[in-house]
């Protein structure tokens, strides 16, 4: 019997009665959740942590508060405990969407778990002129939101996703899939600021066709444990994939950013910039994979991960991973980790600025670079505000 089967059994009564869910469940019970020796979860032993900390039988609370929605004109989709609530959602005429029965997804354990438990899927079927906001108000033991975004040729979308957990000891296992058609554009921004007893596993997949562009911005502040799986498949030629991330952690927050960009065809471009600031007893993990397949000649792929550790009790694991089968490519990666520059702090102090302010100024400047691709001012201001709140 596999090690985590006990925990899986507590979900058994939640499995959907449709063929895809049943099939996914069957596969999941065969492979199990990642165990202690799983390489992909080496620094984030998520299954035992969930087993110990999640209250699977939590009574749902009504946690929706309209004030928590962004006051920006656009379509606001509200999920409650993983299920789209159309009464609470407010949409613009430029958005078209349908609710579908969940279908087969990826075959990694948490994607399979999502397919097993997600009751159905929100499918946004075209690009939009106004931005889209997706909120998750979660208060049950496990929530499994499932979303698909189809952006047709020549269309674009700006999508902001936010998770608001108000009950303690909750787990969210989300799955969002972007289908970026030829010449289409998608920008996905996530703000992760949860409570210190909230857990999440969030999978973002983008399939990008010829001349398509996909951007992901992930800003992580507080969480008991969050694992982000970001997978960008550059399926066509002249595609672009951009990944920006900031994790600014304190207390015992644990964030694991696991990103993969897969170059399958010639002439595509990927760029990745992740920055970490770790204080107190927090843990940050960055694992960036770049695959350049044999056909993907003339690929340009850049990756960098820079970190500042503010406490000797903070832990950082960073691992770039490049696998290149093509021979005519330009790839670079680099990671740094260190402390704040004392000489720079001294320089600021000689201008009358106290040490705390000087440190905050330097960290703010360091962090700000990851916000370059956030085009919605309200969201940018929110993230800058969270940065200041953490730093000052």
């Amino acid at each position, binding site marked *: 019997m596999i090690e985590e089967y006990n925990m899986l059994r507590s979900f058994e009564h939640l499995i959907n009665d449709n063929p895809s869910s049943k099939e996914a469940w069957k596969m999941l019970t065969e492979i199990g959740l990642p165990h202690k020796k799983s390489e992909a979860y080496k620094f984030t032993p998520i299954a035992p942590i969930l087993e110990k900390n999640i209250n699977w039988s939590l009574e749902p609370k009504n946690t929706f508060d309209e004030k928590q929605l962004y006051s920006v004109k656009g379509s606001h989709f509200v999920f409650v405990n993983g299920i789209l609530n159309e009464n609470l959602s407010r949409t613009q005429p430029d958005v078209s969407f349908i609710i579908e029965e969940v279908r087969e997804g990826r075959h990694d354990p948490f994607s399979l778990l999502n397919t097993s438990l997600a009751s159905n899927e929100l499918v946004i079927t075209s690009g939009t002129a106004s931005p889209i906001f997706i909120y998750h108000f979660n208060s049950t033991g496990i929530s499994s939101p499932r979303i698909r975004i189809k952006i047709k040729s020549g269309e674009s979308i700006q999508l902001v996703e936010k998770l608001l957990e108000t009950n303690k000891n909750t787990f969210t296992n989300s799955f969002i899939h972007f289908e970026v058609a030829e010449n289409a554009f998608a920008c996905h921004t996530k703000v992760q600021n949860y409570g210190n007893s909230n857990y999440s596993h969030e999978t973002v997949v983008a399939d990008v066709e010829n001349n398509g562009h996909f951007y992901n911005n992930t800003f992580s502040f507080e969480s008991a444990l969050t694992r982000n799986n970001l997978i960008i498949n550059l399926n066509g030629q002249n595609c672009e994939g951009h990944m920006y991330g900031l994790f600014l952690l304190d207390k015992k927050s644990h964030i694991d950013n696991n990103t993969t960009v897969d170059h399958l065809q010639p002439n595509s471009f990927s760029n990745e910039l992740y920055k970490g600031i770790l204080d107190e007893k927090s843990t940050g993990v960055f694992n960036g994979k770049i695959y350049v397949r044999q056909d993907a000649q003339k690929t340009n792929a850049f990756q960098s991960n820079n970190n500042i550790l503010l406490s000797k009790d903070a832990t950082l694991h960073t691992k770039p991973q490049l696998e290149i089968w093509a021979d005519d490519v330009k790839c670079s990666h680099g990671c740094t980790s260190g402390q704040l*520059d*004392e*000489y*720079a702090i*001294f*320089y*600021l*102090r*000689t*201008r*009358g*600025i*106290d*040490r705390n*302010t000087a440190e905050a*100024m*330097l960290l*703010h*400047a*360091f962090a*700000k*670079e990851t916000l370059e691709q956030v085009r919605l001012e309200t969201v940018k201001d929110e993230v800058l505000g969270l940065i200041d709140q953490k730093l000052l």
Partner: protein
Amino acid sequence: MISIKNLQASIKDKKILKGIDLEVKAGEVHAIMGPNGSGKSTLASVLAGREDYEVTGGSVEYFGEDLLDLDPEERSQKGIFLAFQYPVEIPGVSTTNFMKTAINKVRESRGEKALDAVNFLKLMKEKMKLVDIDQSLLSRSLNEGFSGGEKKRNEIFQMAMLEPKLAILDETDSGLDIDALKIVADGVNKLKSKDNATVVVTHYQRLLNYIVPDFVHILYKGKIVRSGDKNLASELEEKGYDWIKEEAALV
């Protein structure tokens, strides 16, 4: 204004300053000269409060207060300014924002209200003119990618903004061509008044053609070995530092 007595300082157990005595009064310009490694920059850093140096003896009184007891920011708030030999590049912080924070921290320490945007800009414009610095430079990241001359001019601009009582210029002439040197010196001269004092730390005499000192001190092996008026600087220029070294060896 400042009275330095038998000041001794070391870095990582290496003694650099071995007993400095110096008295600077309002309205005066002092030049501190000396060969490389004599302790000039250390003296400047110690006065600004750099924590890498340990003061092992002596005292520094600044307006009757024990300067060595103060943090670098408190020294700045009380009117001490160090123009750096190597100004630090700080990506992501513009000079404008940096100066706004600095000015308001200094004002706060004096119990004054923060400057609003309008008055801050007015002050900026006035000081930019004084030191002939371009607006575009100030909206860029602090010192990042600046030329040597631009960095030094930015230091003098910050000095103009903060209006210090005691300005210490650490090798402000290093890396400057003659035109940049003139502009920097011109800025310093314009900021001079009977109420403030300037200490110019330099290896070469040429800066002193433009910022004329009232007193010149020669620092060698951590001690002031000679003091005089501006003629001492000319003498150094003619003879080099060797005669000082020889003289010191005899003592």
